[in-house]
């Protein structure tokens, strides 16, 4: 069983997105530990990109501050390697295609294996382009997580059939960011996924409250909280990890 699959063995999975280097890597490390200690099942670590076209303002701000602070792919790799000495929770990286391409896909995924990352999420790499990196992922045993958005059944089925790791469902049209009212045909998307794969699926983009987490987790196998944790880091800085721990605990509790 892949390490990512294990994240879905403990009830509904809570996936915590944590942007690296906002405000600095010591806080990122404390945030990862706080999330893991309070019930998170998988950590999605963001490697910042200068122009994150799939993100809303909160994530743009996190990327901007991290890069301004001098964060690089190499610094993040060294940081994760250190973190992996005692943090065993499944981890995936989230970044943009150019960060991987520029590092050279072979070097990037080989580094992922060496430092103990389990998967990669690239929001600007749709199904049509995944061959760009998939051979390198397989070479080094890294799972490439596919995203699914509201789409015709045939498209959802095609993506689901070739899925690995978990499926990242974008809950509705709209760049990432908190929404008050989620309107989505999530149930029908999930039913198409179930017909085509046994790879677990989690809902991301725009879930911030325990109520939303429960509503989504009743349908899917897990949820991804991204802008909520990034927002805590933005507003509380080095004091964020304590708040993140309490937040993760409340979300995980609401989902069970």
């Amino acid at each position, binding site marked *: 069983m892949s390490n990512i699959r294990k994240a879905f063995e403990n009830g509904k999975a809570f996936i915590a997105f944590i942007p690296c280097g906002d405000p600095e890597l010591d806080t990122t490390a404390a945030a990862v530990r706080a999330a893991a200690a309070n019930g998170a099942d998988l950590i999605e670590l963001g490697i910042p990109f200068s122009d994150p076209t*799939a993100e809303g303002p909160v994530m743009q701000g996190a990327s901007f501050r991290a890069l301004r602070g001098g964060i690089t792919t190499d610094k993040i790799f060294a940081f994760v390697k250190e973190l992996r000495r005692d943090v065993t929770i499944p981890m995936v990286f989230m970044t943009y295609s150019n960060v991987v391409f*520029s590092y050279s896909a072979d070097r990037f995924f080989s580094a992922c294996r060496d430092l103990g990352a389990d998967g990669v999420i690239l929001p600007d790499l749709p199904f049509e382009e995944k061959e760009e990196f998939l051979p390198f992922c397989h070479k080094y045993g890294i799972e490439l997580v596919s995203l699914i958005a509201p789409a015709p059944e045939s498209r959802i089925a095609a993506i689901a059939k070739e899925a690995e790791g978990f499926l990242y469902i974008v809950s509705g049209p709209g760049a990432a960011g908190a929404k008050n009212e989620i309107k989505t045909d999530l149930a029908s998307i999930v039913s198409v996924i179930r017909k085509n794969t046994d790879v677990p699926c989690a809902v991301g983009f725009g879930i911030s409250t325990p109520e939303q987490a429960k509503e989504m987790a009743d349908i899917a196998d897990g949820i991804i909280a991204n802008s909520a944790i990034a927002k805590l880091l933005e507003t509380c800085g080095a004091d964020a990890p304590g708040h993140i721990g309490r937040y993760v605990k409340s979300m995980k509790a609401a989902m069970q």
Partner: protein
Amino acid sequence: MTNPNGRFGIHGGQYIPETLMNAVIELEEAYNHYKNNPEFIRELSALLHEYAGRPSRLYFAEKMTQDLGGAKIYLKREDLNHTGAHKINNVLGQALLAKRMGKTRLIAETGAGQHGVATATAAALMGMECVVFMGEEDTIRQALNVYRMRLLGAKVIPVKTGTATLKDAVSEAMREWTSRISDTHYCLGSVMGPHPFPTIVRDFQAVISMEMKAQILEKEGRLPDAVLACVGGGSNAIGSFYHFIEDKSVRLIGCEAAGRGVDTFETAATVNTGRVGIFHGMKSYFCQDEYGQIAPVYSISAGLDYPGVGPEHAYLHDIGRAEYVPVTDEEAVEAFEYLAKTEGIIPAIESAHAVAHAMKIAPAMNRDKIIVITVSGRGDKDCAAIARYRGEDIHE
């Protein structure tokens, strides 16, 4: 030149969020359906003739030719189009397409404001809602065009993120499209972004070289020796090159904005200083750092101030079919002033980059050689900024 999945050699593709895939698939289907539809072609062609003022003139710049003392110089006058630039060619095509797709709202990015003005114009003409994203920095550099767009009924949204220039306007327009696909068409202004945009925009701009070829054959009885155009994303350049790509005797020269020079960090000369990368939906050349972070680029010209280049240009560069040369701010400003004084034509500062390179190569060419420069737009919008560049205290 496009293969089925939108590739030009290794370049192009569709590197976009899954949330946009349906929209580009729908667009490709609609475009393939209408591009050879006689009714669509008739309607577009009527608009280009009656509304935009095509065909644009191919003008023999006799004084410039004599002054430079070398090759014969012709100017392809896209500046004479309605709205003052080549951008209208593409916008009328896309707006007609969007209407047929049942869209009621156009969104666009703009750098210098020319594409925004063209989109606002088409939206006004066709009764569509229009929202234009423009880097805040550019709304200051091109204040007159902001007013023109508002006058035409468009809403202009200043983009404050990143470097607050063209690339950020593109990112913001993509985000807006993601959040509102059902009634909105993203009217992309250059031969860039995910497939099918580089192909659609090229096809609508190819009218430039189609006319140019017929006009030069009529005037000179032969093809030109070189065609020059400025390149940011590269829409007027690909439009100027397209029908000459198979004519190997015609040199195709794209003039990039070097800003303060290709040996400085203040440049936007993508092919000359960039590396292959993946951004804004395409694989192509980009100005970026060693970790793939997109570089903040610089040019005096807001329309060329973009860190990437269209994938077909990247391919033409790779196979050696087109040359891409850097032109600095200073050279472009000198050419801006030169064309005004010599021919009584004030070119857009973007187009002045192509004029500047012609001024470098024409004197060394024989008098029986022929150069065509595409004057992609008019320079009224730039007068205040150039005056300030020259130290004059002038404000609009």
